């Protein structure tokens, strides 16, 4: 077995184990910490592909996000009661349906995507470097400029929505 394969096996085991533990732990803080470990091992997978930029952005974005998740857990949840919250059946049904929708979108993505690493393989250029990534992502003619901007607007809307929701809750209390 090559070293890369061994590292991959260890990383994959850690990723899966920590992902399972995230769901099955009763304690919300422990669950958040398992989630951090899970994301770190995913970043490790990116590093195996030599995708340094992706790995580091993954760590910055997700580790910061989970920190905030942890803070919210501590501030908003009653940690003494470790019992499950009972959601109405319609909410559960909604969750299942949206999960299935996401799965179908993901499957479509995996089937449809065409890897465009071919030309870079022949020229020997490092297609994981930020220069090439930036070109591919933000090039005005044949890049994903418009999609990129739409995604950022979507994120902005989500952020404003979150602020709005938390404000409403405050005034009703």
């Amino acid at each position, binding site marked *: 077995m090559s070293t890369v394969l061994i590292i991959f096996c260890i990383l994959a085991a850690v990723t899966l184990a920590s992902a399972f533990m995230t769901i099955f732990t009763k304690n919300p803080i422990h669950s958040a910490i398992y989630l951090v470990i899970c994301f770190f091992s995913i970043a490790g997978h990116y590093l195996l592909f030599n995708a*340094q930029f992706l790995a*580091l952005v993954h760590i910055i974005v997700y580790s910061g996000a989970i920190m905030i998740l942890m803070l919210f857990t501590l501030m908003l949840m009653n940690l003494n009661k470790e019992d499950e919250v009972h959601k109405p059946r319609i909410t559960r049904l909604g969750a299942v349906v949206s999960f299935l929708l996401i799965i179908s979108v993901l499957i479509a993505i995996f089937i449809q995507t065409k890897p465009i690493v071919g030309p870079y393989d022949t020229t020997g250029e490092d297609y994981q470097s930020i220069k090439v990534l930036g070109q591919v992502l933000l090039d005005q003619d044949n890049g994903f400029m418009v999609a990129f901007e739409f995604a950022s607007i979507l994120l902005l809307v989500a952020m404003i929505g979150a602020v709005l929701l938390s404000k409403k809750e405050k005034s009703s209390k």
Partner: protein
Amino acid sequence: MDSAIILEKGIFIVIIFAITMLMAMYSTLAERKVAAWLQDRIGPNRAGKGGLLQPLADGLKLFSKEEFLPDTPNKFLFVVGPAISMSVALMTSAVIPWGDKLHLFGRDIILQATDIDVALLYVFGVLSVGVYGIMIGGWASNNKFSLMSAMRAASQMISYEVAMGLAIIALIMMTGTLSLREISAQQSGMNWNIFYQPVGFVIFLICSFAETNRTPFDLAECEAELIGGYHTEYSSMRMGFYLFAEYASMFISSTILAVLYLGAYNYPGMSWAVENWGVNIANVIGIFVLFAKICFFIFFFMWVRWTIPRFRYDQLMRLGWQMLIPLAIANIVVTGIVILLFDN
């Protein structure tokens, strides 16, 4: 050839590690000496000549103290907390260019442990992990005051990371690269970034005070309100690790400030020195220049600590979110306009 590179990098990493530890150790002494100087006292002067062995004595004291575990259900996390803080504080030095290069044994030795082209992102990644040490330790202590303090520290660090990142974006727009090596090479002579990005520099400086939990942002440690801080329940060397990590990250913050804004190892007349005195001498001077800049910033950190009182919590949040972030965004806009007008 391959093994030679591994050997070279290995030796280099060990040296960097030793220097970081040494700097952190002597920062503790320097802090007390500077405090004494500012308050017209003498400071520690018993251990060694003029107190030079004081850090060793402190370390010995911390090691020989009783290790005490509080009654917590999270013993593992309690132990992991200071370990994360300490290792994260030491990790950043891997991407710092300590000098340009040396020419030894017939080969060029690059004075940097690793030159990844996303070095700046690496620094930020490590920074964002650093919060976990404090948060996990404070939570695992099973003490409400520790938890309060850890929450303060975490929310402060997260808030100021935003402004810090925005300040850096303006710099990246100018340099056009994320590699710290290229950024320092661009600042040759007196072409330092501080002259082009004064606002960004000030924002970054303020944010690094917040990131290292130093006064005036040391709300995480407060005897009157919180008994001690997130390390209230810690004793012996675990406590020492938390304190030590603060000094190590202060050293690293000073280094990043010096590399990004104060021209790294560059000094006026470096190219002349390379021509006339050779690469080696010029670069050894460069390393000393870099360390002089770092020492200045460490002194600055201490100077501020013993001069300015601490903020109130709401003042801290208002400064971060309502002043620094808009200022940083304005800085980005102005930088963009200037680049568009004058660079094309």
